[in-house]
């Protein structure tokens, strides 16, 4: 089974994200990057599937030159190969532009299954996977909390508000995985050493047959109008225990219909 994982490389979680007021884009220059922890779960899920039934895991990343550390992170976990979509022309692409670039790259590969995170942990739009499935012409199975493949049949447990739905489809499909699906492995030191020797294929926008009408800032149909802070949260209620604390907490919770 050939699995393609779409992964994003994001600022380290310990970095406080800055927004450039002029471009309204996240500042990524000179910021330490890592494989998105959400994407690591997609990689992990792909590795578990191929460890059981064979096949390859190709990681596709769109990002600047400093994304290689995250790409090597996925290779160090055990992915077979990686594709890096790296071109200044791609910078500023909106979700659809990103999906188009990813789809163009994936179409060059024989694939049975595409796995994405539900959303990235830096910008959280969650738009790309659905668009990508549409462009690839495969059904999207989203919010998977578990994923199995028997023969050509894919089954997921799709997280829903009250529990989960069991959804099945025939390959090829695109699956998005949720945070809870697994605990990704740590890359081993040998894996890190081995990652150096694995192939990272680079594609430019031209290689993908994409131009300014579809990608980059010029191709973006989404526009970020303003970026602001969430409103400050109102101060919480402090209950001082003067003998009645327990009752006060119970009343508070009952009021919210939590008990």
């Amino acid at each position: 089974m050939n699995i393609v994982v779409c992964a994003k490389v994001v600022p380290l979680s310990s970095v406080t994200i800055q927004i450039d007021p002029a471009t309204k884009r996240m500042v990524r220059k000179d910021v330490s990057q890592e494989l998105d922890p959400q994407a690591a779960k997609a990689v992990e899920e792909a590795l578990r599937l191929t460890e059981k039934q064979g096949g390859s895991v190709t990681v596709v990343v769109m990002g600047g030159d400093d994304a290689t550390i995250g790409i090597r992170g996925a290779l160090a976990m055990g992915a077979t190969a990686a594709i890096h979509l790296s071109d200044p022309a791609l910078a500023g692409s909106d979700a659809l532009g990103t999906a188009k670039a990813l789809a163009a790259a994936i179409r060059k590969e024989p694939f049975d299954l595409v796995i994405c995170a539900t959303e990235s942990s830096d910008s959280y739009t969650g738009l790309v996977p659905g668009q990508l499935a549409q462009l690839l012409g495969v059904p999207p199975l989203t919010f998977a909390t578990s994923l199995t493949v028997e023969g050509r049949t894919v089954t997921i447990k799709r997280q829903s508000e009250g529990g989960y739905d069991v959804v099945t489809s025939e390959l090829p499909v695109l699956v998005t995985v949720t945070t809870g699906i697994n605990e990704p492995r740590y890359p081993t030191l040998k894996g890190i050493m081995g990652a150096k020797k694995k192939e990272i294929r680079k594609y430019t926008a031209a290689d993908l047959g994409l131009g300014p009408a579809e990608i980059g800032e010029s191709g973006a149909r989404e526009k970020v109008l303003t970026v602001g802070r969430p409103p400050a949260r109102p101060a919480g209620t402090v209950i001082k225990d003067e003998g009645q604390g327990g009752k006060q907490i119970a009343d508070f919770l009952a009021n919210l219909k939590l008990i």
Partner: protein
Amino acid sequence: MEKFRGVDYYGIEDLLSEEERMVRDAIRDWVEVEFLPLVTQHHRAGTFPVELIPKLGELGVFGATLKGYGCAGLNSVAYGLIMQELERGDSGLRSCASVQSGLVMYPIYAYGSEAQKEAWLPRLARGEKVGCFGLTEPDHGSDPGGMKTRARRRGDAYVLSGTKLWITNGSIADVAVVWAKEDDGEIYGYLVEKGTPGYSTLDISGKFSMRASITSELSLQDCQIPLENKLPDVKGLKGPLGCLAQARYGIAWGAVGAAMACYDWALQYAQQRIQFGKPIASFQLVQQKLVWMITEITKAQLLALQLGRLKDQGRARPQQVSMAKMNNVHIALETARMARDIMGAAGIVDEHPVIRHMINLETVKTYEGTHDIHTLIIGRDITGTDAFGV
């Protein structure tokens, strides 16, 4: 307090390769998730989380610089960064890895027979087997050359007798690298397996330092081992000293990790702790301490890094390793003490990692050559005269 944010005031990150950074980040995450939640309970109980040893093996930490035998074959800088991150967790965790890698796997790799290497290195690398290193004795610490432990040939066996003291991992070790003198007055290394008649261990209790680490006494009473358990390729004090140079190199990095942990914690604490209506970080005297710490940490990072580069070029001299061990442990201990001070009363409880690092570093200052012994080593090197008093 926020998660550890790393300490890099001088863009030293830029001097690391991508691979070195990946190694560091992998170990940093591992320590955060797998080790730190356990450390307080083990520190209190005076135990080591032995279940983590195979996990460290799986990551590839043990013997990480060795080539073949299932080892990762990293460069020295990457290995140093591993030690830094482990000791950011606890000196006991780094000690376990240092002993296994630098003091057990290294001598087998460098001085052992092919059969010894095949028998031990892959299993030690995987963390299936644990090793310890027996050099120090009750009456011979800084002057191991005076050791009393003897090895005598009797038929087709060596018979070892003597006592080794302060041995990290002693009682959990499957194999001890024991240094002993033969009748020719020379020191040789021997592999003593757990369960060999005449070989027993006893843990040292009542430690105030390095509590989350096992420290034992090894007793060898007419302990017979096969001839093939002698390390064939080394003779004299240079055997154990060669191992110590490996482990001291790791300590030079490890101490920086402990210092970084204390600094990061104390800085965050000082920014949050309000006295006289202001964060204590706004007082000049507190700033002076924080500035001293970050300056010394930065210098120590550069010292360790350049030592690693020299080591990878085969140019690091043991005296340079001594300087890095001496300096970096000293500044780490001072950093821990200042961090403890900045935290006031909160600095003495184990809810915060600072006091644990501080008291651990008292051991680190002493073992693998005390601070003063390293001073004498460098003194002899630069002046050409020996001040050991012999």
